[in-house]
């Protein structure tokens, strides 16, 4: 008889709290990832090269680009459906999820929330279709956790703006058609839409990464980039602009990382059931079962937390510090799960023949970007005590 075993999600009856429509959307993304990502992603990771343009168009056809936004060619799904899509994409690779997060939650969201009608008409339909790729430039080499100190600046010249400075660690940078760039101005921090063809704009791909290798990460350099007045996002000034976008992306990450964790855990469970040492499957040893049980608990509770945040978001009740709960808990849980699963795979765990070490390395980036573990801890600390402890 075949051994009867349940997946961690079956054990938690996660499907039970999803609607038929949510499950259908999750299923399509999973099917897409199984067919179009999983068979190739280890090679993309190894060579550090992804067919970003092709993937973007495929993902656009599926409808995942800016899927939770309304109008302008976007699908207009629920926030939970967006979260589930992130989860399935990241079960393939965090790099693919990053491509979609940056496109939809950072670049498209910025234009959708803070752009003029003309900017929305000009950019959003192509970005929803995946024929135009966006990136989001906030971080600089010297200003990561503390973006308020950014040095990139835009100065008025007649009705134009002249942009100078550089951005670091920018996902999609070298493959993007447009960059949403945040810069200091005489009117505080403002956002600008910079087409990749603008004179004086260069994007340099960052090499020698050990994480998110199936994702393009770049440095953006602006040397006297002249932009028309219409390039500025009119709807927002100050750090509120970029932070509102990050909140969207972090929400997706709270779901996404669990996809990577689920893939690791399922791989480790299957491996441990097959792998015999000392004449028994290693899954039959109590030490292994303790690992599997602990990881399943963290995966399942993390998923319930993400879904809870998703339901709040769909009711427009989700606050930024609650998003921090999700990002902090789930990124940490996913990274811990990936590391533990890596150990269960023994020597095989260090190769790209299995997805685990790839997820594990990817999750190091996800742990750091979109607010480090420490930053989200401080957000929660402030929420609990009313005392900001950043400086």
């Amino acid at each position, binding site marked *: 008889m*075949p051994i009867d075993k349940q997946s961690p999600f079956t054990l938690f009856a996660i499907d039970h709290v999803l609607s*038929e429509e949510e499950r*259908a*959307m999750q299923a*399509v993304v999973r099917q897409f990832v199984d067919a179009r990502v999983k068979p190739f992603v280890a090679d993309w990771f190894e060579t550090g090269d992804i067919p970003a343009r092709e993937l973007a168009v495929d993902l656009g056809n*599926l409808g*995942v680009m800016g899927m939770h936004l309304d109008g302008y060619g976007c699908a*207009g799904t629920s926030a939970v*459906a967006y979260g589930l899509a992130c989860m399935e994409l990241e079960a393939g690779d965090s790099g693919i999820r990053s491509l979609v997060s940056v496109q939809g939650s950072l670049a498209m969201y910025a234009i959708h929330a803070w752009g003029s009608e003309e900017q929305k008409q000009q950019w959003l339909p192509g970005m929803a279709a995946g024929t135009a790729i966006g990136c989001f430039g906030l971080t600089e080499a010297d200003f990561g956790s503390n973006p308020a100190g950014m040095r990139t600046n835009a100065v008025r010249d007649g009705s134009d703006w002249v942009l100078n400075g550089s951005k670091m660690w920018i996902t999609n940078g070298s493959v993007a058609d447009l960059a949403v760039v945040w810069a200091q101005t005489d009117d505080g921090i403002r956002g600008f839409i910079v087409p990749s063809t603008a004179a004086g704009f260069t994007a340099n791909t960052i090499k020698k990464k050990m994480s998110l290798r199936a994702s393009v990460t770049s440095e953006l350099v602006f040397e006297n980039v002249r932009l028309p007045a219409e390039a500025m996002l009119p709807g927002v000034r100050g750090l509120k602009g970029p932070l509102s976008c990050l909140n969207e992306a972090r929400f997706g990450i709270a779901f996404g990382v669990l996809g990577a964790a689920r893939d690791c855990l399922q791989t480790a469970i299957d491996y441990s059931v097959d792998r015999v040492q000392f004449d028994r499957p290693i899954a039959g040893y109590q030490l292994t079962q303790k690992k599997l049980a602990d990881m399943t608990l963290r995966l399942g509770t993390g998923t319930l937390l993400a879904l809870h945040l998703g339901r709040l978001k769909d009711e427009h009740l989700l606050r930024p510090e609650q998003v921090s709960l999700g990002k902090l808990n789930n990124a940490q849980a996913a990274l811990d799960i990936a590391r533990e699963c890596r150990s269960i795979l023994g020597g095989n765990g260090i190769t790209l023949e299995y997805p685990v070490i790839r997820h594990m390395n990817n999750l190091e980036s996800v742990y750091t970007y979109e607010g480090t573990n420490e930053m989200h801890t401080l957000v929660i600390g402030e929420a609990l005590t009313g005392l900001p402890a950043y400086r």
Partner: protein
Amino acid sequence: MKIAVCVKQVPDTWAEKKLRADDSTLDRESADGVMNELDEYAVEEALRIVEAGEGEVTIVTMGPERASETVRKALSMGADAGVHLVDDALHGSDALATSEALAKVLSGRGFDLILFGSESTDARMSVVPAMVAERLGVAQLTFAQKVTVSGGAITIERATDYGYDTVEAATPAVVSVVEKINEPRYPSFKGIMAAKKKPVETISVADAGIDQSVIGASAAWSAVVDFAVRLPKAAGTVVTDEGDGGVKIAEFLSAQKFI
């Protein structure tokens, strides 16, 4: 052009399938239900025909309550409407009964073209399309790897062992398609959301005017007398090559009557 596509919900191809102890039928609750893979090709082909010209695609299924998910999936790919025949009396129907029930549902609805996948992954008999055509008294163009519609004529390339035959018929006609015909699309999110609002007609055996005595397990022309669980795979035999590896392989193959 009015097109019907008959689709079937089957247990997930990768799932461990079980038979029910009580009546030896497939335990459809034991595994996730998915749209029969070849039916996806039929849906895709119908959508392409309509997109290249004009018309309407109706999804027809016979199956338990939850087969409605499969109708919904086809609607989310882009089909316009669904008809779901669901009735406890249908449980255990064989191919003859299924074709009778489907023919009753299909007749009188004015379909010009009725598409099927060429087989289902659970029963794998490939006979239902031909039987339905026969019962409806229309042409059967089976195993199509290409379909061309022009005016009132349907031309197909029927896949064969030696290549293909070109077969033509006037509408209305039944066409079953093989995998080679196209690559089915993924439902888009917009499609999934739109599918919720599309009409699905749920009908019973009585509604469809099906004679109760020719359907269900009691009317089946064959009966499962007994079944046993497949034995677990035995460990493979390792043959060490001591210069006579070729001979040993040949001996193995001939012992198994492969050569």
